[in-house]
């Protein structure tokens, strides 16, 4: 027996490419711009969102039949905020260093539009297991873009990856810098993230013509 039925595995795989939350639905771009100047925070953020969206989707899905539709957005917001705060408190008590690392992300996760988007569009109408898969899938799709953007911004902006000087030392002029290469300071600034995301969208659409809207 397969672990996931064909329908279920689409829930995970679709958001990775053809229905990616960032490049196709253009959700969650704010955090994709804010924290991708380096690779490490991008990965930390991706993991945090996988965690919160997976669990949040399950909670919403379990409550989907008793949530009053008039105040559903408020309920969703409270659930994601409570979840994130609880995780933050537990980390502060038992894994202090990790919680320091995550400090900025905690607030950013709550406001991430992908999370509210998936609660609203999927978890309110589907069972817990499918909602969990959908949450993890969308968070992965988000994470993949974050990591790609983080990779290029850190490599071209600072000449490093995870803080390691992969292109040589820009001050000592070794490696690539010895032949006149310079870091592009613009890469570390947020506008460049938008341009990198734009390039990813362009590449994706030129490879898959079905994604191009007719106008």
């Amino acid at each position, binding site marked *: 027996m397969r672990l996931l039925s064909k329908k279920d595995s689409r829930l995970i795989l679709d958001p990775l490419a053809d229905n990616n939350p960032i490049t196709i639905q253009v959700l969650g771009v704010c955090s994709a711009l*804010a924290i991708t100047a380096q690779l490490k925070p991008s990965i930390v953020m991706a993991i945090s969102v996988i965690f919160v969206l997976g669990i949040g989707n399950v909670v919403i899905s379990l409550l989907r039949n*008793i949530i*009053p539709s008039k*105040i559903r957005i408020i*309920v969703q917001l409270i659930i994601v905020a*409570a979840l994130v705060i609880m995780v933050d408190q537990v980390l*502060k*008590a038992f894994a202090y260093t990790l919680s320091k690392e995550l400090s900025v992300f905690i607030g950013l996760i709550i406001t991430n539009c992908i999370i509210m988007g998936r609660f609203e569009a999927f978890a309110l109408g589907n069972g817990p297991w499918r909602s969990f898969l959908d949450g993890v899938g969308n968070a992965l799709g988000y994470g993949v873009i974050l990591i790609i953007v983080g990779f290029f911004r850190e490599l071209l902006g600072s000449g490093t990856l995870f803080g390691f000087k992969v292109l040589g030392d820009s*001050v000592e002029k070794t490696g690539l810098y010895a032949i006149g290469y310079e870091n592009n300071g613009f890469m570390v600034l947020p506008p460049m993230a938008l341009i990198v995301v734009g390039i990813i969208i362009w590449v994706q659409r030129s490879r898959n013509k079905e994604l191009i809207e007719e106008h």
Partner: protein
Amino acid sequence: MAINTDKNSYTILFAVIMVLVVGSLLAGFASGLKPRILANERFEKQQNILYTLGVNNNEGPNDVEFISTDIVEAEFKKYITRQIVIEGDKETDNDQAYLIDIKKEAKKAKKSDYTRRLPLFIGEINGKEIYVVPVRGKGLWDAIWGFIAMDKTMTIHGVYFDHKGETPGLGAVINQRFFMDDFAGESFMLNGSFKGITVTKGNNDPKNLDKTDQEVDALAGATITGDGLSAMLKKDIKMYLPYFKKLNER
């Protein structure tokens, strides 16, 4: 069983129950974990102070590794020989001085009748007395703070900076070695008067070999964090100036 979730009474009931459940859950979490969180924060302060003295677990050139929380209290007692609180001209020994909340002190000091309590920690490294002071200021998004260790001529021995919510990869890198290490050897004093240390662009000294320029090379994409850091150093270190003057006259 289908519930009519559209009824107003149901909506209100749901909202009330949800607030009660979530509220008590969060309150329970917060109060249950508080002792552990406070202990962690205390250890962190001790780790930060010891870090500026050079007591840390750094191995590689990019490491910022504190000593382990199991031994930090014993090590803190070993290295920090005196903790004093400065109030105006008065200095009192107080071995809880590191717990003084300088954010609250700064707030209280705005009232004219309050003399701000300034904590100072004296440690001994290689037979030399090192003075560690806390600083706190504003970055781009939120608070930044740190500890500055210096000798009695106000030349920096080591620093540790941290932040609450600076942008990851930009302002947030103030707690990285390549930035913090630049401060060692710089002095707050120039020809006998207080000048501070400025984080600046275009000082033409990216390796920071010039230790007499009172300048440290700025971070790309973090101008406001850097400016906030310079202002924090000028303002908070200056408050300790009378103490250091007295120290040098002795």
